[in-house]
């Protein structure tokens, strides 16, 4: 506890915060949510929605909590009649032109206008006889639709593009109650981080075309995960409906991705729902791959490994998207061999979010290259492939396009296996869970270890790779050390 904290009272609760803290943030700490729209901790302060007006003792007028800095001994009240009346006033003004679209609006159930109206709005409108303002829906860009009728002009989207993305392609057009969010016809909203405006929009005005009418907010289960699109390691939430991933949204992490994810990561989830999965363990029997149960499959692998050991070579060709636990277990399993481990990473163009330090869609399009490196895997993929030719055992982990050829025993752990895939020649094929179906750890490019959690069940008999490899390691007789999985 440092000495120079400022103590103030919010709705009777004392709270101490560093100097320079905004009243709205201090309130959060005191457990008080001051209703607001235009304020967002990741954006510059605008102070224009006027929803966060609070009563501050000794101030002649209500003050906006989002732009007022705490002072020692300040007494803030959010539930007095003037403050509540002011909020009700703002809500009423917002609702006069806002259409009753809830039944068809994607935001329903996660809409801040709904939330605050429920909390303290009026039951009926006094605007009844007048027509509401109408403007047609606009297509802003590859994924973003703009529904002007629902817009409350909080300008979060404009400020995001201007200050965080640093590409001002959204503006406020016109004046007064004719105002709307506009773009210029020569510049679409196709910035690599543009999708964040959909998350930022408190209402259903900016919508994702990808998510349009796919699910209702209350049907979704949300699971904490880590994006697998690149090595930045953005924290995300996988939103599933009936065990299908339907949406990816950012989770706040001030040290990694603040409040944002890029569009590449946002769209990088369909593969998690693939239906063409390996659903059962397969072993080679009479030249064909035959489905068996786990016990038989694991026994077969143990047999292969015991038969091939005695100082031979083992090569592990792995995916840089495998969990650190799986990678560690794979290495441990092959510790009786002269071991080579390698991976290859798909590369793409880097796309920084200019207004945030150290945040970008990274060129390395895989989440755990660093984790693999830390465990001793290298990027010397071509040499590893060559070594695999004469290795006694080759273990391929979740690398379905691996063009492996070997005279030794080929073991394949993966989620899918194409009809023409070289790994069809494997002795044993073991089905594993993908990132949405297991719990695990990724290490991002900065060496940060981050945990992801299970959002949906794995199909058929598939199991997490870490479990499979851990079982194998256990089944091998001592002197293999007992696995200490973190």
């Amino acid at each position, binding site marked *: 506890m440092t000495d120079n904290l400022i103590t103030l009272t919010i709705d009777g609760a004392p709270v101490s915060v560093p100097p320079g803290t905004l009243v709205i943030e201090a309130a959060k700490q005191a457990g008080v949510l001051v209703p607001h729209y235009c304020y967002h901790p990741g954006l510059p*302060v*605008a*102070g*224009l*929605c*006027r*929803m966060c*007006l609070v009563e501050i003792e000794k101030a002649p*007028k*209500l003050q*906006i909590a989002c*732009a007022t800095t705490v002072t020692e001994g300040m007494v803030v009240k959010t539930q007095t009649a003037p403050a509540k*009346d*002011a909020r009700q*006033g*703002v809500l*009423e*003004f*917002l609702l*006069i*032109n806002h259409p009753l679209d809830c039944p068809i609006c994607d935001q329903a159930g996660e809409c801040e206008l709904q939330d605050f109206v429920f909390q303290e709005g009026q039951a009926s409108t*006094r*605007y009844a*006889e*007048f027509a509401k303002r109408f403007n047609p829906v606009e297509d802003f860009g590859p994924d973003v639709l703009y529904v002007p009728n629902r817009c*409350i*002009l909080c300008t979060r989207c404009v400020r995001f593009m201007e200050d965080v993305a640093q590409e001002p392609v959204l503006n*406020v057009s*016109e*004046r*007064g*109650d*004719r*105002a709307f969010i506009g773009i210029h016809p020569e510049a679409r909203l196709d910035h690599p981080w543009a999708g964040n405006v959909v998350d930022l929009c408190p209402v259903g005005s900016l919508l994702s075309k990808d998510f349009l009418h796919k699910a209702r907010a209350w049907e979704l289960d949300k699971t904490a995960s880590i994006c697998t699109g690149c090595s930045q390691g953005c924290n995300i939430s996988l939103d599933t409906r009936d065990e299908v991933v339907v949406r990816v949204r950012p989770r706040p992490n001030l040290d990694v991705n603040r409040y944002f994810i890029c569009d590449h990561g946002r769209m990088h989830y369909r593969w998690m729902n693939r239906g063409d999965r390996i659903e059962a363990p397969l072993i080679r029997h009479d030249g064909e791959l035959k489905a068996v149960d786990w016990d038989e499959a694991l026994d077969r692998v143990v047999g292969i490994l015991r038969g091939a050991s005695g100082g031979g070579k083992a090569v592990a060709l792995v995916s840089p998207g495998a969990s650190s636990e799986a990678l560690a277990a794979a290495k441990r399993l092959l510790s009786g061999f002269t071991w080579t481990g390698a991976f290859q990473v798909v590369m793409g163009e880097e796309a920084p979010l200019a207004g945030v330090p150290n945040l970008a869609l990274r060129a390395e399009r895989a989440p755990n290259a660093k984790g693999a490196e830390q465990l001793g895997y290298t990027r010397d993929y071509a040499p590893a492939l060559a070594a695999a030719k004469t290795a006694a055992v080759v273990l391929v982990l979740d690398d379905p396009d691996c063009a492996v050829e070997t005279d030794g025993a080929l073991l394949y752990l993966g989620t899918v296996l194409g009809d023409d895939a070289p790994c069809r020649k494997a002795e044993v094929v073991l089905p594993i869970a993908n990132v949405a179906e297991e719990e695990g750890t990724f290490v991002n490019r900065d060496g940060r270890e981050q945990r992801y959690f299970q959002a949906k069940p794995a199909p058929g008999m598939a199991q997490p790779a870490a479990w499979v490899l851990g079982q194998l390691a256990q089944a091998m007789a001592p002197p293999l050390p007992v696995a200490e999985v973190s």
Partner: protein
Amino acid sequence: MGYPHKPHPKETVVLSQYFGDADARTYKGWVKRGGYEALAQALKSDPVAVTDIVKESGLRGRGGAGFPTGLKWSFMPKEKKRPHYLCVNADESEPGTFKDREIMRWTPHALLEGTAIAAHAIRAEVAYIYIRGEFTEPWTIMERALGDANAAGVFGDIKIHLHRGAGAYICGEETALMNSIEGKRGNPRIKPPFPAAAGLFGLPTTINNVETLAAVPHIIKRGAAWYKGLCLSNPKSTGTKLFSVCGHVQRPGNYEVTMGFPLKDLLYDMCGGPPAGRTLKACIPGGSSVPILTREETEACLLDYEGVALKGSMLGSGGVIVFDDSADMVYQIMRLARFYAHESCAQCTQCREGTAWTTKILERILAGQGKTTDLDLLLDLSENMTGKTICVLSDSCAAPIVSGIKKFRGEFEAYLAGKRQPVMVS
């Protein structure tokens, strides 16, 4: 001088001495009349000394807020670490006000001189004069005058530039004016920070009205005591003010009187009162954003900041709008609400939606479709629009509505009861 009329004996002619005199707006003509002597004097003095003179004189901002000018200048940083700016507010758009236009087109050099003195006092290297886009004639005259004065080298190191507005009343709000100069939408800024700390381009800035600055050379030349002595009522309101009288009067125009002057004398003696056969019904004394006065209040009102406040209104810009008994108060209040609805910048929820909504309700009343609950609704919305926004445009829309319903309720009720023919179509 109530240009285009001859000066009235009761006027105190200071700023308006040369209104109508084409020679006075030339550089040579101005110098002949003693122009730029005050500036030369000021440039030789310490900036703090100049500020002190203006403080002592009691000069208050003539744009509408009435903030003591010398005090405002003294808010600039004491230590000069970064560039300072002066902005001159020539955006004159408050309905009923037309005095700055006269100052610019008849005495452009008075404004330039006052600008330069102020820039010196606040140690500003650059001054921008923000002239509303519609003032095409003042623009041309100011351009010419600035060119001549620059050629004569009277401003020393101070650079004065003209900046043209493009049709936005809200740019008369000091922080919106700065945003407009910066090449942005004219949105008012939240305060703090205040302009003297972080204003134009983020640097210490003072914004002053045209009329305020036009008085400065006189104060420097003739002394603070002289200006302070021009006071008829309350010692907190000194000097002269140009009152722009318009609407239902026989002789509309600008009249310059000493602070504390009776509004009654201005309207009846100087302006000739309403047209023959008509009687005064209402008066808005300070531009459309201040509460409306009844005839009784008008005739008992003294024209200074305190005097008008005493009657429940504000001196504001001094734009005196007169309505006689032929005026439809409901219609005019609707037209004012519509003005604010057009001019709202759209930032604050209450203003953006409230100005439009109140206009619609008033239009409905005028179309004969008002409801009995409409007056209470208007009053409630007005309260929701007051004291809750970034700037006071929202409050300004509410002021005529609230005072109008309070003082002319009968006219509203006549429409509601169907006793008055609708004048609008819904």
